[in-house]
């Protein structure tokens, strides 16, 4: 597998980046590179009607700059036109994905902050979106990181790695 690049924009948890990088290294078995992309102004993707940022347009804007698999971390609230929110977005078999911490943070739900849980959730979302970039669809196995999760409860329930079936598919798709 090629290197995975992590970058950030308006990301509120910079001090967690190294821990996230190290966790991803051990799960994926590849070197995860922390990289800066050019300064992008997220305001261009802001919807005044919805008070959120358009995830599809963000991916479109950075896709020209992605040499290998690239996941952009942010803390702004993301949406796509048909959905009220998304935790993250990736184009199937694409190069770039975006993950938001906005709705992964317990404080969004009026609960006390739990940084360990937040870090786990971010890692799972990054691994999940990377799976889509590698051509994986959602997995019916509840414990696989590729299981569809539309709530943090479902996100917490699943594991942080691919199930054997998904791993096999990655090998087949990328061999």
């Amino acid at each position, binding site marked *: 597998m090629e290197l995975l690049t992590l970058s950030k924009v308006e990301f509120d948890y910079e001090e967690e980046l190294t821990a996230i990088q190290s966790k991803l290294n051990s799960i994926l078995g590849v070197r995860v590179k922390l990289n800066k992309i050019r300064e992008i102004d997220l305001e261009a993707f802001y919807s005044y009607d919805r008070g959120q940022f358009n995830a599809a347009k963000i991916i479109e804007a950075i896709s020209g700059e992605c040499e290998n698999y690239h996941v952009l971390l942010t803390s702004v609230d993301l949406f796509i*036109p*048909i959905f009220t929110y998304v935790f993250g977005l990736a184009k*199937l078999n694409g190069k770039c994905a975006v993950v938001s911490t906005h709705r992964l943070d317990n404080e969004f739900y009026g609960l006390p902050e739990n940084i360990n849980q937040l870090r786990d959730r971010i890692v799972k979302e990054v691994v999940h979106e990377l799976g889509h970039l590698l051509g994986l*669809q959602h997995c019916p196995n509840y414990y696989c990181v590729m299981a569809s999760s539309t709530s943090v409860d479902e996100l917490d329930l699943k594991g942080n790695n691919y199930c054997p079936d998904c791993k096999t598919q990655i090998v087949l798709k990328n061999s």
Partner: protein
Amino acid sequence: MVQSQIKILIVDDDEIVRDSLSAWFKEDGYNVDSCENANEALKKISNTNYDIYFLDIKMPGMDGIELHKRIKNIYPDALVMIITAYASVDTAVKALKDGAFDYITKPFDPDYLSHVVKNAVKQKILTDENLRLKESLQSALPVPEIIGSSKKMQEIKDSIKTVAPTNTTVMIRGESGTGKELVAQSIHLQSERKYSQMVSVNCGAFSESLLESELFGHEKGAFTGALYRRKGKLELADGGTLFLDEIGAIHPKTQVELLRVIETKEFTRVGGSEAIKTDFRIICATNSNLEEDVREGRFREDLYYRIRVYLIELPSLRERISDIPELTQYFIDKYRRKMNKPIEGITQEALDLLMRKNWPGNVRELENAIERAMVVSTGRELTKDDFYFQKDEESQISSGLTLADIEKQHIITVLKENDWNISLAAKILGVDRTTIYHKLKTYGIERP
């Protein structure tokens, strides 16, 4: 059922909605198709039966509500989701009333959409499973065979086929032993109610109070001996068919109560006050002349007209002698299997004997005669000598006796021969026990 087997059709004029929903469902592994208007959708539907439909309400040309109706006309079990904007929730509610499975508002909450789709898939799996179970049950519920190719029997079979799928009350009239209950079973098993039971009540076999309790059930303590609450046949027949045999024997008070139940589908148990709703189809049978009973005030006219909506008159065996060979062979085959005896047919001479006989007990009497003949027979074919009545064939009847005298005399003879065992005598005479009791009363026969 795996997700790739679930076929989803998205119909929306907004390309973003189509593409985004398609991508989302594809990520989940569903088989997704989409189109931008109702006409295109109808073309796709004519070739493919989708499992779940997502229809936008507002589209140029035919709107989602109309398309929903068209889809339901073609595929009544289709699961349709209506896509609407917040402003048109009222329309979505209308769609739900018209049978849509659910509705989703734009933009969709992914968590809610995920639940809605999971519910729809669950519903689809249950519907398919239900259909499969019904089909397998269908093969386990063979419709009873009505034997006979005579014109009269063909008419009866046609009548059954016509009335069975309806919910109409049926009255079956025929002499004892002509197969009234068999016809009732055939109607029940060809109706929509076949998966529920047919509950039979022989109204002639109960006294007034017992019949009331049998039909309506009773509460604990309703009368001496009512130690427990008991459901009546009306309650047990809920969703199915209630077969009331010998309807003419119902007492006047019970007639009033039965009429009320038929009209309101509601009743209370004996000794109870709770109104119980029930849904059953009534099939009645009688071997008496109900019109005469109505004229003489023994049977309520309003009840008579309520139950005599569709009349099936079963011919006596005398009226369909041409069916005797077919019936005979049917019973020989039946008892050959039961008794494991190598009897395969009947001699022409014996068959002629059967065709000359009067058969007051009709098919039941014929069946019993053949069963008895098969017990005593030692050959591969039933012969004239195997039938107990052959010796009497040339009639020992004195010309001075009336038919009633002969019947009375014959009943006494058979009872004496069988030590006044009513069940045995009924079997030999080819009638049921209640008929024997009725005849004993009519002719004033008393056990010595």
